[in-house]
């Protein structure tokens, strides 16, 4: 290892980056583009859900119930006069659900029976349907409480859950999606940056020229790693800044811990890119592999949006080799819960092992040979 040679290589890389703006575009334009797209495009918070309301016989009882629906920010009730037209609205996807108060609703209540409130939900989007069902249950419970309170009568719900939601009391989905998103984006960028530039060097034949010089393989690899590490950290800082200032995600934990973990993760991602480029020596294949082995797993198998606990056992095992999984966990914790050391340390250890593995394998596989 010769520091002067290494400095020369790094200088060369930076000059190349400045000449060809595609690396700058990947490091700085892509995070902004993807963060905007996902930040605004992906949300699991349903508000103003269109619900068709059919009241067969309007009375004071029914208007109290429908009133609760109208006041809720989650619903946009539309009144239909018959079940038939409401069904048609559901079929035509104009309403996500139907709430039906039958003609005997008030009579049953007066007689001390239990009236049934018919709810029909379009279950195609199962997740959305579940959320909608939960909201309706909330409306129903509020209505029961209100009635009991007005009548001075005891509440007929023996046990009810009192929720205390930690870390994200309003359950804003953006607060957990945006930190996870940073992990997905940095996986893609880290791998693309190194995968493409090294493959380009092979394609253009400049790798051969490098090999004819006295530099060693580890110097070449470090000469690639250091400049793109600096660029990647730049993209990372940009993403964190956007998350905090634009998307107003709280950063509860320490910024420096976040920075340290990001550095570790970036090493793993860049290492993966270097490994890809040492396998595929052309840009097209390297780009394809980078997208398939990094972006998709980071998106689906990292816990960024789909819960890992709920996956089948075989797939849960596979998630352990996805570097983004550890980083998603770290990011969600540092952003929302604070510096929880057991989580940060264990996940960092996993990242460290992966970085060491990728860089080690790349170094072993790279020889100063042309074939």
């Amino acid at each position, binding site marked *: 290892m010769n520091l002067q040679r290494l400095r020369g290589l790094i200088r060369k890389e930076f000059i190349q980056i400045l000449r060809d703006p595609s690396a700058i575009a990947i490091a700085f334009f892509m995070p902004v583009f993807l963060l905007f797209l996902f930040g*605004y495009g992906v*949300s*699991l*918070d*349903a*508000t103003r859900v269109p619900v068709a309301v059919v009241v067969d016989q309007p009375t004071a009882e029914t208007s109290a119930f429908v009133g609760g629906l109208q006041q809720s920010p989650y619903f946009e009730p539309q009144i239909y006069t018959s079940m038939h037209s409401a069904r048609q609205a559901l079929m035509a*996807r104009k309403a996500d659900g139907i709430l039906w108060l039958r003609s005997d609703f008030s009579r*049953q*209540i007066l007689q*001390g029976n*239990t009236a*049934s*409130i018919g*709810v*029909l*939900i*379009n*279950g*195609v989007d*199962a*997740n959305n*349907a*579940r*959320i909608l069902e*939960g909201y*309706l*249950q909330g409306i*129903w419970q509020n*209505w029961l409480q209100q009635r009991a309170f007005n009548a001075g009568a005891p509440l*007929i719900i*023996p*046990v009810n*859950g009192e*929720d*205390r*939601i*930690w*870390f*994200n009391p309003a359950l*804003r*989905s953006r*607060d957990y999606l945006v930190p996870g998103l940073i992990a997905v984006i940095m996986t893609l960028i880290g791998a693309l940056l190194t995968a493409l530039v090294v493959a380009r060097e092979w394609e253009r034949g400049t790798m051969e020229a490098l090999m004819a010089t006295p530099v060693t393989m580890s110097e070449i690899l470090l000469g690639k790693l250091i400049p793109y590490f600096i660029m990647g950290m730049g993209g990372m800082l940009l993403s964190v800044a956007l998350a905090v200032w634009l998307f107003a995600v709280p950063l509860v934990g320490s910024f420096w811990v976040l920075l340290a973990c990001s550095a570790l993760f970036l090493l793993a991602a860049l290492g993966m890119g270097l490994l890809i480029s040492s396998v595929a020596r052309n840009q*097209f294949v390297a780009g*394809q592999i980078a997208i*398939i082995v990094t972006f998709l797993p980071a998106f*689906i*198998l990292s*816990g960024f*949006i*789909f*819960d890992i*606990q*709920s*996956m*089948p056992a075989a*797939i849960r095992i596979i998630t352990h080799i996805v570097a983004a999984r550890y980083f998603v*966990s770290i990011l969600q*914790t540092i952003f*929302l819960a604070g510096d*929880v050391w057991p989580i940060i340390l264990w996940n960092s250890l996993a990242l460290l092992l992966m970085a060491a593995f990728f860089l080690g394998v790349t170094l072993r596989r790279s020889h100063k040979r042309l074939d």
Partner: protein
Amino acid sequence: MLARVWALVIKEFLALLRDKKSRFVLIGPPLIQLLVFGYAATFDLSHIPYAVYNQDTGFASRELLGDFQGSPAFQQVATIENEGQIAPLIDNEKALLVLQIGPHFTRDLLLHRPAPVQVIIDGRNSNTATLALNYVNTVLLSFDTRWAANHHWGRPPAQLVVRSWFNPNLLSRWFIVPGIVALLMLVVTLLVTGLSVAREREQGTFDQLLVTPMGPVEILVGKALPGLIIGALEGCFIALVAVFWFQVPFVGSILALLVGMALFLLAAVGIGLMISSLAVTQQQGLLGVFIFLVPAIILSGFATPIANMPELVQDLTYINPMRYFLVIVRGVFLEGDNMSMLWSQYWPLALIAIFSMSAAAWLFRHRMQ
């Protein structure tokens, strides 16, 4: 003319399938994605890890906790004895939620006083938290109904009777897997058409194509057909896997789906050819495909509902062909739609197809001179 186009189509297929790597790109990733998406992409929860902090010694709390133990959605991971143990469990993600039952739970219930259960939940993943709370509520509700009936609490004035149409057990796989048909058809068609001209330009064979007696329209048709054929084959294959492997019901009209597929493929091929005629190198083509593909998937309603997006973004989704095709696929698979019910989706798709094809033809003519 037909013979010339046919020859070009055959040549395109040979070029695509001859190379081992590009053959893999056509078959490998879609298959892997289908399996991974089909199994991993689920919003349904199972094995929710929870801990119990029970200060009550009576039988009521035991009965309630028995309900949780009996539910396949929940998995108890710890029993704790004091308040201080809650935070480490939640912070370290050992438990998603802690059920805390107060010391007078059974006594209160026997005195006909409402007794609360504290649910302390990790809100880091807000969607999981929302769903888990719903699951908890379902268990509590069934406990309540039973307890009220057995212990003479009187009946509640009204209760919800919920039924869901089209997907009675609310399996999110039924929602995701038909979506994959649309997703992979778009990916494959764009990759095939988006890179086809750029590859010829890079290899210099495009000039050779130009000196043949073929006109620009014939070349365009010859380039469009392989994308259409491969997209259609792959779409049908995935639809079959969805029905026979993932057991997603198919209750609508096959014809309605095929019409939708044809229109969607035309739109996708048009967009692919637009990218193709603009890109000089395969690298640019790939970048173009990526830059179109990611927004098209995110803003289609594939994973998260369009209705949750800001209004400006919602307006943007109207130019996204995948948005319409997703409604068609899910409508045909789950809701039993036929052609007459899908006109509102067909015509925007046809409009996008006509626009993208003519734009591609125009770009093609202009870039050839």
